[in-house]
C-alpha cells in the first residue's frame, strides 16, 4: 500500500517542481509568441467564467502553453525541450502519438485514468520555424470533450480504456 502511495506521489511531486518559465528561453528570438500560464485561483476563475462548459474543466489544475514562431530556421535550440521531455517521462504518461518527419516532430502524451477520463495531456511540436508546447494537467472527462468543441477541444478519438485505438506505446 505504501509503495502505491509513493508511486502516486512521485509524479505529483515532480509535476509541482517543473517550472514552465524555463521554456520561455525558447522564444528569445521569436517573431510571434504565445505564453499562457493558468493555475490555482486564476484557473478556477477562468473556468467559472466559461458558462455551461465549466463543469468539464473544473478539475484542471494547470494549463501551460508556449508557442513561438520564428522568421527563419535555427532560432531556437531543440535541446531546450529536453527538460520538458524528461519531466513528462517522470510523470509516466502514455505517449499516444509520435510523428517524426524530416524536420518536424510531434508528440502527444496523455495520462489515462479509469472511467473514460484523462489526467492530463501534453503536446510537444517542433519544426524549424515553430515550436509549441501544450501542457494541461488535471482530470478531464472524455465524454464531455465533445461538448467543448466550440472552446477548442477536439474529439481525441480515445477509446473507453483511455488509449487511442491502434497505438498504446508507452514512452
Amino acid at each position: 500500500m505504501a509503495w502505491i502511495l509513493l508511486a502516486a506521489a512521485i509524479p505529483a511531486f515532480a509535476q509541482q517542481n517543473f517550472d514552465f518559465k524555463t521554456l520561455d528561453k525558447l522564444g528569445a528570438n521569436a517573431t510571434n509568441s504565445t505564453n499562457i500560464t493558468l493555475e490555482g485561483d486564476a484557473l478556477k476563475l477562468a473556468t467559472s467564467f466559461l458558462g455551461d462548459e465549466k463543469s468539464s474543466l473544473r478539475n484542471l489544475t494547470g494549463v501551460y502553453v508556449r508557442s513561438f514562431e520564428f522568421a527563419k530556421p535555427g532560432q531556437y535550440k531543440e535541446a531546450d525541450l529536453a527538460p520538458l521531455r524528461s519531466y513528462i517521462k517522470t510523470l509516466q504518461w502514455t505517449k499516444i502519438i509520435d510523428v517524426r518527419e524530416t524536420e518536424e516532430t510531434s508528440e502527444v502524451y496523455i495520462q489515462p485514468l479509469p472511467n473514460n477520463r484523462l489526467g492530463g495531456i501534453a503536446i510537444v511540436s517542433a519544426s524549424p520555424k515553430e515550436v509549441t508546447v501544450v501542457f494541461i494537467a488535471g482530470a478531464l472527462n472524455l465524454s464531455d470533450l465533445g461538448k467543448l468543441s466550440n472552446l477548442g477541444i477536439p474529439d481525441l478519438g480515445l477509446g473507453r480504456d483511455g488509449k487511442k485505438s491502434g497505438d498504446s506505446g508507452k514512452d
Partner: protein
Amino acid sequence: MNLDEELIAALRREAAPENFAAGVLAKTTLAKTPSSRARDWAFRRPAIFALAAVLILALVLPSAIYEYRRQQRGREARDQLIAALSITRVQLQQVQEKIRRNTRHRI
C-alpha cells in the same frame, strides 16, 4: 450695625422684578421656537446628507471596485483558457493531418 442686623438685611425677602419670569423664559425655551429649530435643521441637512453619502460610498465602493476587478480578471483568464484550448485543438488537428499524410504515403 452688628452682624445679626447685617444678616437680616442681606437675607431679607424681596419680590422679583415685574418681568423677571418672562425675561428668563424668553432667554431659554421661548428662544428655541419650532421655526428656529427648523431653520437650524435646514441649514445642517446638506452637510448631513453629504456625510451619509460619503459613508455609504466608503462602504460600497471598495466592494464594487473589487467585484469589477474580479470580473475583469475572470474575463482575461477565461480568454486565455479558450486560447490555450484552441491552440491544443489546432496542434492535435495538425498531428492528425501528419498521421493521415504519412499513412497515405505508406499505402
